[in-house]
């Protein structure tokens, strides 16, 4: 490839990936409505454009395959042959070949992806069928006709693309960093203004505050993408898996226009796919069993996203067989993860969360679908890594529901600054449920663990002094101290701190290099006075 072309490679990959996703989506719709000519036209157009793009770039294999698809689709859209399940299947398979082809291009190495078998299949699918209509394998859909026959939807698409620009994510990150610095410096100016009581400065600072606020909001918005970016792939996942397992599934998606930080969206894909596969594979029963249990033949799986005060709540619900907490606990005992005594002391919710322990699998047999790759433990770890939480609700025989709560963005958060001795630490406000003022003598010890009773409930405590290697708090002192009650997922602890400092909007900076493995610390931030303050990794100190 010439150097000139390679510059466009990234662009091609990202556009082609988008096309592939749209192809998948439209094909799924076509499967439900095979007579829909508009859809067929849309699919044809997508394949045609894909072919054109690949040809311009000189990617032979993609061009050939897309061309072959286009031929088949042309016959279909001219209604010279009927859309059959076989044809749809072949088209799906062709998309499955296109994907590794794109990866091949992206990686720049020849991965020997073979397309001959697929192209033959595309050709044969019409011929082998005893034609229901005249089905000559028509060869030449000329580019000009395709160009003229633009559907309405394609024009609408055009309008949309004209108002957006593709930007490298790196630029957005830099922009975010700069805004972060601006916010820090603004805070510094405010402090100066307050210290020296300069009215004029304070007035223009108020103005500056408004502007930086809007700027920050806008920049944050640029980093947000709708969850449809990943959600759109899932109908295909469900369809394929349901077919494989001979299950009938009605898959619904809701709220795919909800926006999240790009990084979170990318990272959350894998866990979500895992949850979806679990729901289809283990959750939903086969039709016969469902009928026997008085349920509808078709299983229902619902994926929904919605905003909830500073959070995005993603919920995956199925009306399958559900889980029994006690069975899970029994299994954990069998596996030696748990003792009978411990089980007796556990709540049902705690038993349920056992499935998120590494190496726990409830499937009687490990299938190649849900038994491999990410486990529930990875789902939980990943969600918590983003300061999010995972909760499970389930009813034996009725179904399960997995709820993931994620913060909207990672870059700027609200935090409570606390003090231990002379050191200041930041605790993300989103984790905090309550702050309690106590006298140290109220702290009790159960099995060497410090606890406190809050409204008839025992709250385990973690001393921030201890976690960060500072001298222990003298329990006999009468001086007031504070418990910051935090929550991650279904876990709750109280963090003992000496005093509360302030509440602030902080810009999270990750620590790298030598500092990449800090314990109990998830990052750092810079305060208005230029001081560096470390952010407590709540999940890490639990």
């Amino acid at each position: 490839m010439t150097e000139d072309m390679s510059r466009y490679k990234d662009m091609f990959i990202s556009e082609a990936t988008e096309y592939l996703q749209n192809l998948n989506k439209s094909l799924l719709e076509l499967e439900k409505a095979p007579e829909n000519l508009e859809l067929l036209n849309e699919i044809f157009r997508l394949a045609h454009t894909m072919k054109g793009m690949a040809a311009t770039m000189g990617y032979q294999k993609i061009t050939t395959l897309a061309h072959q698809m286009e031929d088949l689709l042309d016959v279909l859209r001219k209604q010279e042959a009927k859309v059959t399940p076989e044809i749809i299947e072949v088209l799906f398979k062709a998309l499955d070949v296109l994907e590794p082809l794109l990866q091949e291009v992206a990686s720049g190495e020849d991965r020997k992806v073979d397309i001959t078998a697929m192209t033959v299949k595309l050709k044969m699918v019409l011929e082998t069928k005893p034609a229901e209509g005249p089905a000559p394998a028509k060869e030449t859909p000329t580019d000009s006709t395709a160009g003229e026959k633009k559907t309405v939807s394609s024009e609408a698409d055009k309008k949309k693309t004209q108002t957006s620009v593709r930007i490298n994510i790196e630029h957005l990150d830099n922009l975010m960093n700069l805004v972060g610095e601006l916010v820090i410096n603004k805070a510094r100016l405010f402090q100066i203004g307050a210290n020296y009581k300069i009215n004029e400065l304070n007035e223009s600072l108020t103005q500056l505050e408004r502007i930086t606020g809007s700027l920050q909001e806008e920049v944050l918005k640029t980093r947000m993408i709708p969850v449809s970016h990943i959600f759109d792939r899932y109908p295909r996942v469900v369809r394929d898996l349901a077919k494989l397992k001979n299950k009938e599934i009605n898959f619904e998606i809701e709220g795919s226009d909800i926006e999240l930080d790009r990084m979170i969206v990318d990272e959350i894909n894998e866990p979500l796919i895992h949850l979806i596969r679990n729901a289809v594979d283990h959750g939903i029963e086969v039709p016969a069993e469902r009928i026997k249990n008085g349920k509808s033949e078709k299983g229902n799986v619902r994926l929904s996203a919605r905003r909830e005060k500073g959070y995005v709540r993603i919920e995956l619900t199925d009306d399958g067989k559900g889980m029994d907490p006690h069975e899970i606990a029994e299994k954990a005992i069998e596996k030696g993860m748990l003792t009978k005594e411990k089980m007796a002391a556990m709540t049902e919710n705690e038993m349920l969360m056992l499935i998120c322990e590494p190496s726990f699998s409830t499937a009687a047999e490990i299938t190649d679908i849900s038994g491999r790759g990410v486990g529930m433990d990875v789902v939980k770890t990943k969600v918590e890594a983003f300061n999010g939480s995972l909760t499970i609700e389930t009813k034996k025989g009725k179904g399960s529901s997995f709820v993931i709560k994620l913060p909207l963005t990672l870059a700027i958060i609200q935090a409570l600054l606390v003090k231990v001795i002379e050191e200041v630490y930041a605790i993300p406000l989103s984790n905090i449920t309550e702050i309690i003022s106590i006298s140290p003598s109220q702290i009790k010890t159960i099995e060497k663990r410090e606890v406190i009773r809050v409204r008839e409930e025992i709250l385990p405590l973690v001393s921030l002094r201890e976690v960060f290697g500072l001298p222990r708090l003298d329990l006999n002192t009468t001086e007031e101290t504070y418990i910051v009650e935090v929550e991650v997922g279904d876990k709750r602890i109280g963090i003992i701190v000496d005093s509360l400092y302030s509440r602030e909007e902080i810009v999270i900076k990750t620590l790298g290099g030598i500092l990449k493995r800090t314990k109990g610390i998830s990052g750092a931030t810079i305060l208005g006075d230029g001081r560096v303050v470390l952010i407590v990794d709540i999940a890490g100190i639990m």
Partner: protein
Amino acid sequence: MIQEKKEEGTSQIVVFGLSNEEYGIGIAQVQEIIRPVGITRIPGMPTFVEGVINLRGKIIPIIDLRDRFGLTKKEDDANTRVVVAEVSSQTVGLVVDSVSEVLRLANDAIDPLPPTITDIDAEYLKGVGKMDRRLIILLDLDKVLTDLEKSTLEKLNKMAAEEGPGATGAKKENQAAAE
């Protein structure tokens, strides 16, 4: 030998003091020299990691080379400086006793074979520069830093293994530092 631009066979060296010896690093690697203020301690880190500072919006780790190399440590005074260096795309601050000057050394005045005049392991050295009657030990910062990362990881792993959760080892050290 030294990476910075060579003007007629010379190298520019930033010279600093570490427990009564003179050390130098190539000027190209030095970003700036600052005073050690506003260091935030990072709990649970080996003692040679003094903490982090805010360098114009960038958070950089501060390393005490004296601690790392087992040299005698001096209390911070008016001469104590932090040499901010960029090493393999990472910015770090190195605490030194003092920074004296920038020297231009003729390349033939640099002896590539490090003599046994210092306590520091020979592998971290690039050579020794001779100027008048002074000897300036030239540090190989890339090596020093890779080693720092490695030993940080090792220490953390060791602490985790020895103490289980809670890393009391670090606790004691830090406790001493805090008192």
